[in-house]
């Protein structure tokens, strides 16, 4: 009751809803709500939501890109590892091949050397034989010479001997 007492005692108009103020408040608020709400608040909210969606989408896209990047990197790593393995394999193969070639070459060289050695031996043998033949011949000639000289001294007048020698020489020549 004390409130009512104060109200009636002094002018306390804010608690009395005046018709004019009710009317104008309704008009101003209705305009603010219906017109500004439609022209300003709705587009603002839409813009804000669109923007937040854009940001969310961008974040998602970045996440996906990151994931892809990660996958890509692991793929790269795999390829690198494979390449490294391949390299090792190739090197190993090359080494093997080189070893093979070297041992092959060695074998062949050995063979060649053997062949050469045999050839050389044969030639030496041949040469030796030829030399021996030559020596024999030389010895024969020398012996003949000596013998001739001896014989000549004895047979210088003996035609029969001369003829015989002639005959012998012919035989030699015919050979």
């Amino acid at each position, binding site marked *: 009751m004390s409130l009512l007492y104060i109200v009636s005692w002094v002018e306390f108009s*804010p608690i*009395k809803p005046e018709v004019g103020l009710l009317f*104008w408040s309704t008009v101003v608020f209705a305009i603010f709500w219906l017109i500004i*709400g439609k022209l*300003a608040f709705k587009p603002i909210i839409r813009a804000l939501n*669109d923007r937040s969606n854009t940001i969310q989408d961008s974040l998602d896209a970045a996440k996906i890109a990151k994931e892809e990047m990660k996958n890509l990197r692991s793929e790269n790593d795999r390829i690198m590892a494979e390449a490294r393995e391949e390299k090792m394999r190739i090197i190993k193969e090359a080494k093997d091949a080189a070893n093979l070639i070297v041992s092959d070459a060695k074998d062949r060289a050995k063979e060649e050397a053997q062949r050469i050695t045999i050839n050389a031996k044969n030639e030496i043998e041949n040469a030796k034989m030829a030399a021996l033949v030559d020596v024999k011949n030389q010895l024969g000639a020398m012996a003949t010479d000596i013998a001739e000289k001896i014989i000549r001294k004895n047979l210088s007048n003996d035609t029969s001997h001369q003829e015989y020698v002639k005959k012998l020489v012919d035989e030699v020549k015919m050979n």
Partner: protein
Amino acid sequence: MGKTFAQEGYNSHSTPTETSKPLSSPDQDTENQSLINDHSHNDSHSEQAHETHSEHEFKADETAFHHISDLNVYNIGPWNFPLPCILYAKDQGWSIFSSSNFDIDDHHHGSGNKAVDRYALNKGRVMRIIDSSFPMGEVSVEGFKLEEKEVEGKKKETNFVIANGQKYELEKSSTIDGGLFGGGITTFFDFSITKNVFGMILVIGLISWLFLGMARSYKRNPGSAPLGSQKLFEPIILFIQDEVAKPFIGVKYERYMPLLLSIFFFILSLNLFGQIPFFGGANVTGNLAVTLVLAVIVFIVVNLNGNKHYWEHILWMPGIPAWVKTLITPIEILGIFIKPVTLTLRLFANIIAGHIVIIIFISLIFIFGKAGAEPGAAYGASVASVLLALFISSIELLVAFIQAYVFTLLTASYIGAAIEEHHHTEADHH
């Protein structure tokens, strides 16, 4: 009516000895002059000012109530700026004119030195002279007074205007409180652009312009980082959306966002506007009419959007015994109407309380200084009052935000309750 009161004399409020004095021109009668609350156009009495001052005791409550009231003038400091008056009385139709036609007196809370078409400006408020014998057009006014009058066995404070040496009863404009707070429908309606209406149009116009500009700039460069006013308002808008609308309303929140944002910014901007000192202190959100309009709009929106489940829960709450339902239903129906009432009163009381407290603290200077009689005490009190007023002002800034938030939050929760889909009712039917 005016004549009978005039014969009693217009100083009946004071001692019986004074009532016997003859009705002379108030300009020559100092005794009478002191009884006229708003004596005006009376500069010849300035020498006797200190005499009358001691009789004019400073009343902090009157000062406070005057400052928080709606007026037909806009007073900034000692100046009173006229506002348009749009008045309607059944027997004399519409009267539209500027309140400057009242010849506003700058020294006495904006009372008018003239009456226009049976309307007079008493302490910044337009009142109507009931007596139909009072002449139309501009009539010079000698003063106003407040005295008790017997109405239906009850004493009632009534305003009178003194003109042509006679006393005429004044009537306030119509209010819709039905006499509950001392108002009621009278013979005229005041649709004027009052201080509150002017402040409201000014502030809402300003923020409308701001928001329209913001909306344009969102349209112009979509998806870009916020610029200018967007930086300031964007977090608030997002706060209302994410912390108020989404949790309380749910998936359909976007439909109600314009309403929630309108309510929030309407209340917030007017709360803050009322806090500006020496700018008229338009107490818009601390006026029951304004908060009532907001609450009624919320009430209409909530109940128009209420779905089947909402009404079912109010009228015939499912899942409880029938005899309990008969108890619950009246309470629920009462609840529909209590909600807007609490919305109205909460905002009104919080804002008006802040205004009154600040004015009372400032008034301490005048109370201690005995209205200029003790300047030393006034200086001492001013230090304390300024500190106290500063403290309350800071709190009021917080209250401005909190009340706007609370009103919006409750609106969202009422809407949410009205449109919520209740799934548990299906389980009850099994």
